[in-house]
């Protein structure tokens, strides 16, 4: 009885193996193109990682439904780093060791991207980051294998200072979050100030999870500032807006592009009215003139995303959407050669994406200009294009 069972088991196992080999043999002609991704899908930065993953899967599904890239199906390997540097490094190592992996998209945050790019650079694996920090791709000669689709914080600061200059506001107080996003933003705010003849008269910091910013704002109240610039992501910037109203501070409040989402308007409530911020064109694409080439891209993305996920689209998801579409173009031309993929990405010109029009070059692995941002104002619970 026992031997019979063993024999039966063996036969089954062999049949299984045969099926696997057969399966492999059948697919050999069109081995999938493996694309790795690392996003902060859970944890405090999940508002970035979740739409990024969704957008990536949405595009991959569409590509595969049309028969893949030159007949090769696209296979995604998506990891969640939970916004943690150690986990980002671990996942990057895993992807770098997978010799089938052609490119990595992500991570979602500046500090996780900085950790991951060290590993992918060594492995000569192209990486397209979805984070804001300009240090990710600059200087490009040291970041041969690294690209990014998110606008840099420097462009956002440029846009804000241009706006301030135009309205003759010369003294600002800055309030930045203590995460990588805020630290990088603060650095740009301080270094670019002199270029626009702007004086930073007070600077304060708040924690990502802080729930009360009145002490910091009280300190700012004593400074001779004409405007307050807040640099943060998640719910905290909304609390800054609320606390400002609570303290009766009537200075104009300028938020970073990290706050440019519908969620922010909802959280800030009536304290949000009148807040100004730089934003990607996606948030106001309906207000763009038809001559703007980005309008059609944004419309397509917004419509598809809403139809598939029954949730509002976000600029963050747009970073991953741009990355995978860029990569699609590169893979179509370069095939499964990492070196050639890198070359294609570097040579990308006039690529119309969600975040802007990309013109990559050996000196610039982001390829965007400050024009990728527009200035918007919150008005009646919506964004209004002002500049």
């Amino acid at each position: 009885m026992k031997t019979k069972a063993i024999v039966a088991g063996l036969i089954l196992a062999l049949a299984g193996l045969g099926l696997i080999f057969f399966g492999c043999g059948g697919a050999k002609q069109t081995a999938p193109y493996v694309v790795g991704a690392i996003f902060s899908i859970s944890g405090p930065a999940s508002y970035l990682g979740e739409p990024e993953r969704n957008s990536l899967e949405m595009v991959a599904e569409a590509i595969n439904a049309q028969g893949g890239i030159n007949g090769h199906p696209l296979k995604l390997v998506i990891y969640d780093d939970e916004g943690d540097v150690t986990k980002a490094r671990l996942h990057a190592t895993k992807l770098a060791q997978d010799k089938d992996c052609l490119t990595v998209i992500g991570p979602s945050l500046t500090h996780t991207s900085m950790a991951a790019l060290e590993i992918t650079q060594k492995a000569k694996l192209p990486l397209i980051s979805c984070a804001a920090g300009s240090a990710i791709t600059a200087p490009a000669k040291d970041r041969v294998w690294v690209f990014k689709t998110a606008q840099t914080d420097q462009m956002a600061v440029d846009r804000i200072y241009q706006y301030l200059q135009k309205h003759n506001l010369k003294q600002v107080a800055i309030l930045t979050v203590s995460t990588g996003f805020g630290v990088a933003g603060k650095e740009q705010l301080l270094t670019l100030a002199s270029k626009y003849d702007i004086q930073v008269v007070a600077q304060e910091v708040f924690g990502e999870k802080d729930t009360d910013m009145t002490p910091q704002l009280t300190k700012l109240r004593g400074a001779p500032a004409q405007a307050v610039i807040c640099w943060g992501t998640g719910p905290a910037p909304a609390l800054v807006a609320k606390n400002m109203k609570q303290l009766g501070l009537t200075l104009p409040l300028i938020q970073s592009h990290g706050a440019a989402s519908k969620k922010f308007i909802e959280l800030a409530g009536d304290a949000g009215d009148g807040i100004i911020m730089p934003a990607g064109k996606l948030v106001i694409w309906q207000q763009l003139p038809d001559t703007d080439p980005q309008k059609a891209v944004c419309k397509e993305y917004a419509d598809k995303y809403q139809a598939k996920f029954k949730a509002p689209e976000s600029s963050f998801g747009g970073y991953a959407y741009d990355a995978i579409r860029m990569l699609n173009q590169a893979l179509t031309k370069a095939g499964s050669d990492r070196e050639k993929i890198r070359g294609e990405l570097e040579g990308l010109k006039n690529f119309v994406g969600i975040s802007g029009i990309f013109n990559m070059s050996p000196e610039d692995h982001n390829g965007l200009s400050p024009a990728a941002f527009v200035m918007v104002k919150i008005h009646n619970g919506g964004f209004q294009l002002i500049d």
Partner: protein
Amino acid sequence: MEIFAPFLQYLISGLTNGAIYALIALGFGIIYNATTIINFAQGEMVMLGALCAISIYHLAPSLPLAFAGAVVLVTCVGLVFERLALRPVKDPSPIVLIIITVGGAVLIKGVAMLLWGKEAYTLPPFSGNVPIHLGPATILPQNLWVLGITAISVAALEAFFRLTLVGKAMRACAYNIRAARLVGIAAGRMVQLSFGVSAALGAGAGILIAPLTLGVYDMGTMLGLKGFSAAIIGGLGSLAGGVLGGLVLGVAEALATGFISSGYRDAVAFLLLLLVLFLRPQGLVGGRK
């Protein structure tokens, strides 16, 4: 005047946060009194209170209803938690029970993440958003609500423990559970009641603070830790101690943020905790045991 103006503002901010810490600290204290365990799921009750109130408010936009409904719901969660997770334990030594509460906290947080997602939600303030000017400082009506309801809760608790038979029975359990059993007090029921009252207090704290700080699934952990620190600073198990500890902690945090640097906010809370543990381990008002 130069120093005084911001000082008053820091004090208001600190007292508001401190009142919330105090409510959470009281929850820790009540359960500690009845069972000598620390219920680390206390912070999650705060989160549940905030999110339940927000959800109820979205279904039926009435703040009193949202407040009452959320408190009742979370009280039930507290009771069920005690019944299902703690009472069936075969070896109810404090350390085992404490570890179970840590596990319970993780579970509640996870379920909340599935139910409400990872986004933050907002609850409208109880009575408008127009700041009241108080000399050089401003105060929101909501700050007054927080302080007022905390004061009322503390007074009601004090009366409950001093004047009612059930309250006295709970205190008896705290002093000596075996003696309490011998005189016919149903100690098990008292333990369950303590979880219910603590959950209600936590929920109240969560609902009060939701209009000021937004409600999100992971808000409970830090608030729980701060409440725990407050309870230790004041003296674990003492009502007055919990309130004092909470207020001291809140004000210290606000002053540190204002006069030193905002980066030290959480550090101050835990530094204070360590100082108290070194210098006066029984807490500010705790008697020697």
